[in-house]
């Protein structure tokens, strides 16, 4: 069920970003950010009680006006200030429901964007460090078998007994999908192609599917006896040139989704 949800979600984002493939990566990121802001404001409109928020906003405006008009009378100012604080508290309570409703989709979008715009794809000239984590102890040195397809394994394999971890480097070769095979378990590593919106795997996990739903940069791996529980690939972060700065995807998303939400609220007359 969760696996199916993850596949559908990945597919939805693949389709949404399909038109942006030939364009710079920032375009796809901006599109999803603007769409998310707009989506969130519409959800807010549907879920929140717009009448109550509207009344509350008017009341709060009245309190501020009252304070400004009675500045010479401290008691009245304090009375209005108290009312204002109370109205603010009520306002925050009104926000809880829409925020809860928005939280899950936001986390899903967040995960999808992180998977697609958070890290650079493998580079054919820079080796990637793969680290694999064991739950039930490291295999005996010499018995660890690592197979590769579409990759070149660069020795040595460093075993760290204290952490139950093993690390090694791989370098992409050729232009096809790349897999690792550890103790008979096949693990998808990722691509060197990085078209706009391409999901870039940064690790694998043999555990729950729920994790992979919210963290789509984690690939699936089967768990067999002696195989690692999870792993990660050291891929560099990506930054985007926006307004003369170099922004992480998170900054782009937060700024442009907020901007789009504010504009959406104006256009669709949503009270926030």
């Amino acid at each position: 069920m969760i696996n199916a949800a993850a596949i559908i979600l990945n597919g939805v984002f693949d389709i949404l970003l399909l038109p942006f493939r030939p364009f710079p990566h920032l375009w796809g990121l901006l599109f999803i950010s603007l769409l998310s802001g707009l989506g969130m404001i519409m959800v807010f409109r549907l879920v929140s009680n717009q009448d109550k928020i509207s009344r509350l906003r008017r009341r709060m405006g009245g309190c501020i006006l009252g304070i400004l008009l009675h500045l010479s009378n401290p008691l009245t100012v304090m009375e209005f200030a108290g009312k204002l604080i109370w109205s603010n508290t009520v306002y925050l309570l009104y926000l809880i429901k829409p925020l809860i409703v928005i939280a899950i989709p936001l986390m899903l979008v967040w995960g999808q964007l992180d998977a697609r715009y958070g890290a650079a794809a493998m580079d054919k000239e820079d080796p990637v460090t793969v680290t694999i984590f064991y739950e039930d102890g490291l295999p005996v040195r010499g018995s660890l078998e690592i197979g590769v397809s579409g990759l070149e394994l660069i020795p040595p394999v460093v075993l760290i007994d204290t952490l139950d971890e093993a690390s090694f480097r791989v370098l992409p070769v050729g232009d096809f999908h790349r897999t690792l095979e550890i103790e008979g378990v096949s693990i998808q590593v990722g691509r060197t192609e990085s078209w706009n919106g391409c999901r870039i795997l940064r690790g694998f996990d043999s555990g729950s599917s729920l994790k992979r739903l919210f963290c789509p940069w984690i690939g699936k791996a089967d768990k067999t006896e002696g195989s690692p529980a999870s792993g990660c690939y050291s891929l560099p972060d990506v930054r985007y040139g926006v307004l003369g700065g170099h922004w992480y995807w998170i900054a782009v998303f937060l700024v442009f989704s907020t901007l789009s939400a504010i504009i959406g609220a104006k256009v669709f007359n949503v009270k926030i």
Partner: protein
Amino acid sequence: MKRREFLKLAALSPAALLAMNTGCRRTASPARRVIVLGIDGMDPFLLRSFIHEGVMPNAAILMGSGGLNRLGTSNPPQSPVAWSNFITGYGPDVHGIFDFIHRNPSTRIPYLSTSRVIGPDRIISISDWRLPLSGAKVELMRKGEPFWNRLTDEGIPVTMVKLPVDFPPDRGKARILSGLGTPDMRGSQGSFTFFTDDPRSITDNTSGGIVVPVRDYGDNCYVCTISGPENSMRAGNPVMKVEAKVWADRDTDALRIDIQGTRIVLAAGEWSQWVRMRFDAIPNISSVHAIGRFFVKEVTPRLKLYLSPLNIDPLNPALPISEPQSYSSDLAREIGPFYTQGFPEDTKALSRGILSDDEYLQQAWIVLRERLDLFHHELSRFREGMLFFYFSSLDLNTHMFYRVLDINSPLHASTAPRFKGAIRELYRQIDNVIGAALSARDSNTEVIVLSDHGFAPFNRSFNLNTWLAEEGYANITSAGARNQDMFAAIDWASTAAYGLGLNCLYINRSDREENGAVSPEQVPDLLLRLKHDLESVTDPATGRHVIANAYITSDLYPGPLPPYAPDMIIGYARCYRSSWETTLGSYPVGVITDNLDPWSGTHCVDPGVVPGILLSTVPLSLPDPDLMDMGKSISSLFGVPVLPSGGRDIFNVSGS
């Protein structure tokens, strides 16, 4: 107007505008292009030899066009001085750079001559936090107007890549990436870090870098603390630190470095790719970024892990290294991170014995490969104007490996024969660069290759300060402090002169220096006597003169001089140079000693000994070209109406 006529007019308008626009260009011919390759330290003698050997076929082609000319260098012939001559068209009296090191005339405290950091004007202190209300500034100490301003004023695009003595870069319309003179993140010209648990390697010697003792407590894990820049936001400016965990796998002689979420696997003998590090001044609020390369010298039996000087991250520079500021980050995004420090080769690590010849050369090749990538990237998009590209590799590697060329070097016999081809191979690589520039040439493109100076062997060190003391010009009162820097050994009240920097000598003037001993009226006679005495010094081991010329600065540069200018510039004879101890004011025993440092080549001698080279597709119309002529000459190739004022036009293409 009828609809059909309107449509016809509308269709024709863009074409007409386009035609008008084309007509506005200065000429209908393709844009003028000049490629200038600045090859630091390319020596005319070595170049000629390699051309004759057939190692440099592309240089031979250039030699056929404009000849191989000796290019007059600066006095003193040090790179910061020479490149400032090139940039401004004037000598040190105008641009103000006399040596790598200047000193405060009053306190005699030395400082780097090319740039300085000025702290913020106002600071709010809250507990031990210090919050600046204005930003700190870095000031370029070189004066004078760069010649390319005449080009950019005429709308000619100018790109200067790794330009020496231009940190921070000149503000203007030119695109500039700073080169020589750009510090590392610790503010030095290159300070390495070496982590080891080998007690034999752990010393208190901090020259060139720091050795950090680390220990494995049985879990094969070493906690290595990397010291970065000072934190100006905390009282006392403590050093910012980043922790790296190094896990050793002694069975495979390899290790894994975990640093700020990145894992790096390296086997013994391997260099890492660039590793990004973030030093937090205020956690999550203010941080600076650096890049460094690890080298695993040894894992078993002892950990020996080298970390290169921390370079300013070009993607997110903590200091201004390019103009416009986005230029360095754009380059880093396009070709990846690159060395930003002015001296990218880790020469100090070789001199200290931290890196072997082999290991140093590996790093030097990494630098050169990276520089070649940058060059090809810029060349591929060069369409119009001037492209200047600077290479440091010949200079620094000839410094380190001159001992293989010179059989009289005290280290010649002990250097492995396999390094004897290293300098030839470097010249071959530079020839490939010249070849690439020639391939990019069309009928409207000129290629100029120049160097700031040549090279000479550095076999014998001259302890200038010791000589001054032995001849009675300085008075050593604390014999135990002879080897300490900053003149700790002497009594200023009875000292007439002192040496500081590589070629500079100063009179201890009573009207300038604190506790100065020489009155202004005594100075001219004292200088004449010093000149005579210095030019008479002979090496007891060889009977040869040590100093070819001792120049009185006011004779050499008759105009007004800045107060920090030296009183005398020492032009050493071939094979001699001031000792390292002289440069920072110490008084070791013995006036002339063998130079046992791998830094075995020099150009800090008499300028007549080490001219630079000039190769060009444009024939010269004047003899004896000089670095100061180059700005005017290059500008004249573009036909700009007002040429820079300094120097001569040696190409004289207009025939005026």
